[in-house]
């Protein structure tokens, strides 16, 4: 075994390229290899590179942009899948048979109105739980624990409604004056006005989803707010400046960390001459910082980035607006929910 493994190790060491270090991960190894090819192909300065022994210095042939992926976190819990609802419901009915029974006299004193009310309700629904429908866990029909087609018992909205109705009826049955009916406010709807109107400017749309700020340039392209990094400016500083210059100062935002979460490389069809003398720009690279909006709203009225419109979009809506290549570069940094 020892000789075999030694032999294998020797073969591996022979096969392994000399450039590659075992401490470097695979993706970085590939990047290193690619960088060598790229530096040769872009003919950055072959004479300089050959004359000096130092590693070849690439000219800044790309404009470096800093972008801000400003997102609003989900405000409500997500909508459950039908399978999840069915699963939770089934587990609840199983649990009725398997937990310890509810200790009624620990919570309701004998002879009180609350106790009488509780007894009435138990007689009606056969089980202490309010959200599993009509089900008797210890009766002869306890096996009949599956929901029929079209029943709403597994729906969280229905369960919340049942809870509120139960609380209302308890309050009405146990209170002294019968003239006044107790009204308990229902949970707010999960669909807002902005959803119904399709208002993409509002931050109150699509509450269970993460929303991202996209801006439209005067040429008509949609993108995340981004602009070239200026001299002596960090990536994060540039991203924050970009956001202020494009969407105004009326937003309370938080930039998450100092590292970009994604990047997008755009190659020009023909290299263009840059501002600095003697450089030709091959394209632009945009590095995206992650940001969260806490309060406020975007306002493009005073923008300095030639923008004309903005929208708050969820991940699936973004490909309708941006170019396919742009989306394929940014999609992995966007949250699925």
């Amino acid at each position: 075994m020892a000789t075999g493994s030694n032999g294998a190790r020797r073969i591996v060491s022979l096969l392994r390229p000399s450039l590659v270090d075992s401490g470097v991960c695979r993706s970085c190894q590939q990047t290193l290899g690619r960088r060598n090819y790229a530096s040769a192909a872009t003919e950055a300065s072959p004479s300089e590179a050959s004359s000096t022994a130092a590693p070849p210095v690439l000219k800044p042939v790309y404009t470096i942009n800093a972008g801000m992926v400003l997102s609003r976190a989900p405000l409500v819990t997500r909508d459950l899948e039908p399978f999840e609802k069915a699963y939770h419901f089934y587990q609840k009915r199983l649990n009725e048979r398997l937990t310890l029974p509810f200790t009624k006299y620990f919570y309701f004193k004998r002879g009180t109105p609350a106790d009488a009310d509780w007894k009435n309700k138990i007689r009606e629904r056969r089980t202490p739980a309010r959200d599993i429908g009509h089900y008797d866990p210890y009766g002869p029909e306890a096996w009949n624990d599956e929901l029929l087609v079209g029943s709403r018992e597994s729906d969280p909205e229905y369960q919340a409604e049942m809870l509120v109705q139960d609380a209302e009826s308890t309050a009405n049955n146990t209170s002294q004056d019968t003239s006044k009916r107790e009204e308990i406010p229902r949970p707010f709807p999960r669909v807002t006005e902005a959803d119904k109107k399709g208002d993409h400017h509002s931050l109150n749309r699509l509450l269970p989803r993460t929303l991202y700020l996209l801006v439209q340039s005067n040429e008509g392209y949609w993108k995340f707010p981004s602009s070239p990094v200026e001299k002596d400016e960090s990536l994060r500083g540039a991203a924050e400046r970009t956001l202020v210059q494009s969407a105004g100062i009326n937003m309370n935002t938080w930039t998450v960390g100092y590292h970009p979460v994604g990047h997008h490389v755009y190659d020009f069809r023909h290299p263009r001459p840059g501002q600095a003398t003697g450089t030709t720009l091959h394209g632009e690279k945009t590095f995206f910082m992650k940001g969260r909006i806490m309060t406020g709203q975007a306002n493009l009225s005073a923008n300095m980035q030639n923008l004309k419109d903005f929208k708050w979009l969820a991940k699936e809506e973004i490909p309708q607006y941006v170019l396919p290549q742009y989306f394929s570069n940014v999609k992995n940094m966007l949250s699925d929910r």
Partner: protein
Amino acid sequence: MAAREPSRYMARALPRALGSTARPQGIACRRFASDEAPARRLSSQMDELETASSLEGTVSEDVAKSFDPVAQANSRKTQLPRSRYQFRSPKYYRGPLHPHQPPPPSDPSSRVFVPGPFSSPRAQQTYTSTIAQDILALCYVHNPPGFKPPPKAPRLREWDDSPPTIRTGPSVDRVVERITIHSHVKGAIKENSSWLHVAGMAIQTISNVKVTTYKSKTSVPSWGVVPGRDTCAVKAELQGENMYHFLGKLIDVVLPRIKDWPGIKGSSGDSSGNITFGLAPESVAMFPEIEVNYDMYPPKMIPGCHITLHTTAKADKDAQLLLSALGLPFYGKMIN
């Protein structure tokens, strides 16, 4: 293990050396006639899988209306013998060779089956949708290619053969693993066991979990504690759904109601990512579960408790970041 490692290198290095193309993946994409054999095609196996969910299938109205399982069962003339359709798990596990084996614990007919989850906890959803990715972006450390981190002495001793118990290497994976609620009941030692009953009931009520009792291991003469004689503590350990519900309830409902609560002390923690804080008896009484029948508990016997949040973070600093993102404030000097 030692023999497996070079072979792994072999598997990785061989195609790289032998393949003439720059992309060795091309080899795998090439198809041969033998691949087309029906037994090896993946699609033939996929055909057996149902593509549509049973939840989305459409049933005609009248069929759905007329289906009544109870009526069907009642109208049946002959019943199967009970043993044919009602499996009972054996009460004892009698070893792997016994003919009557208990079903696995995940089977609902098993005696040790625990149903759940019953809901998708809100705190967990917040964690997965918002906090986890923010922590990833905040704490990501990029090492350029060829970078070797300086060698660091391990915090604990080396472990030789068994699976590693020390957590090594940088990671941004920080989750609350479990929560322990522990309560030392002084009255159970000094007076009688009723203190222990009340403490156990209170802790069980706020945590949805049955508590475990503990006896003291050490002797403390000034408290009158004798090892092994007095049951002096109750503990509940929460995991999964119960843990997230408890965390949400604690953060959103209970802690804001405590008067002048400054937060968790910044120096709390065991320096490997587990943060502990205490709740006074009057704070424990503020849980909605105890509040609903407060008069059933003798007021002086309601216990205080220590709550330990066990996280997968390796340092207290990381655990503090996670917990403050979840909504637990910290105060004072942060000590790692």
